[in-house]
């Protein structure tokens, strides 16, 4: 009976993925391109580059997120008997938000490391100037501090004999954070155009978008991990500590959802393209 339920849920998610792809959930409009380019004045060639890049990010992230959520459904039904969204009594492996977010990050990594083979050329040119640094370094610093804080705090909980669950959660979050770090490294380190100013401008816009989006995802997963770790700290049964724990969990959950929404590879709903 349980396996039938898993099958139904898995089928539901696969059908939802197929439908969202079919109805154009990843379709890139002129407005999307204008948002990414920062102008409505892109040439057809630039528009094509922006469109393919944005579509690749959307497809890879969507597939990654759905596979992550599917994994959570299967793991939750198989090992815990239920599935959660956000923070629950089960581990993060049964959490659709945690696994979905991890899947989105893996999808973003896949989108950033995807490369078409280049036409053979006898001459290669490169600039000796430094590559641009990571976008939004303050978000990345905050994510690192949050991940490290969750790890140290949960290690302290484990060392005082209060259970290993928060530590395992923090280690899991750290693994996902490493995927985000690898994606940032792929963004800043990838090959760049040098002979055309327009190509450089397009490249910088795409790097800036990807760097900002991945930094938000990295912070989202770090905050969610810390929230999970806090929620699993045992011995908080009554009194003001219970309230503090509940508030911390709610705040962490809200911050995670907001960051995840802001990391989306889509323009904000109210964003209007400037007339060219």
């Amino acid at each position, binding site marked *: 009976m349980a396996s039938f339920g898993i099958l139904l849920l898995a089928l539901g998610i696969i059908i939802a993925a197929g439908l969202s792809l079919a109805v154009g959930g990843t379709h890139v409009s002129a407005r999307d391109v204008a948002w990414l380019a920062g102008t409505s004045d892109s040439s057809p060639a630039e528009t094509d580059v922006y469109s393919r890049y944005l579509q690749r990010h959307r497809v890879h992230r969507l597939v990654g997120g759905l596979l992550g959520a599917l994994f959570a459904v299967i793991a939750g039904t198989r090992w815990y008997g239920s599935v959660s969204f956000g923070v629950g009594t089960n581990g993060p492996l049964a959490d659709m938000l945690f696994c979905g977010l991890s899947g989105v990050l893996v999808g973003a990594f896949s989108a950033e490391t995807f490369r078409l083979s280049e036409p053979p*050329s*006898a*001459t*290669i*040119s*490169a*600039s*000796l*100037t*430094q*590559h641009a640094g990571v976008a939004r370094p303050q978000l990345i610093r905050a994510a690192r501090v949050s991940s490290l804080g969750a790890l140290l705090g949960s290690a302290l909980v484990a060392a005082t004999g209060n259970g290993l669950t928060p530590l395992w959660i923090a280690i899991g979050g750290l693994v996902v954070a490493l995927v985000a770090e690898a994606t940032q490294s792929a963004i800043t*380190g*990838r*090959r*760049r155009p*040098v*002979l055309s100013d327009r190509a450089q401008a397009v490249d910088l816009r795409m790097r800036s978008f990807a760097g900002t989006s991945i930094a938000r995802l990295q912070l989202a997963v770090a905050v969610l991990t810390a929230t999970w770790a806090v929620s699993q700290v045992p011995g908080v049964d009554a009194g003001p500590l219970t309230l503090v724990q509940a508030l911390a969990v709610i705040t962490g959950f809200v911050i995670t959802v907001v960051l995840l929404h802001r990391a989306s590879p889509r323009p904000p709903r109210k964003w209007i393209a400037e007339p060219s």
Partner: protein
Amino acid sequence: MIVHLDTGSPVPVFEQLRSQIERLIASGQLRPGTKLPPIRHLATDLGLARATVNKVYDALAREGLVETAGRHGTIVLDGSKVTTAASDLSAAADTVVVIAHQLGLDASAAHRALDEALRRL
């Protein structure tokens, strides 16, 4: 500050890269204190193995043209003592003239080839 490598040239890419960076330092286009890109980034941009770029930076460090400052990267030093820049150009011009003569081309063909090469950069 652009470097160009010709993968079809009989000159090894290591030597092409080393000599171009050396010339940029000698001519003052790469000023003392300038940070060169990390080995990983330059290797990716040029499609070379990291070991090749590492070898170039090591060779430049042995010549006293750059200094590797650990996590702060590779820093350009004073290159005023290097005086190869002018003679390099002169030697390259001699090579162009010899090739033009051997191919039976006149001076205007050699000039045209040089103009086209300058335009391509």
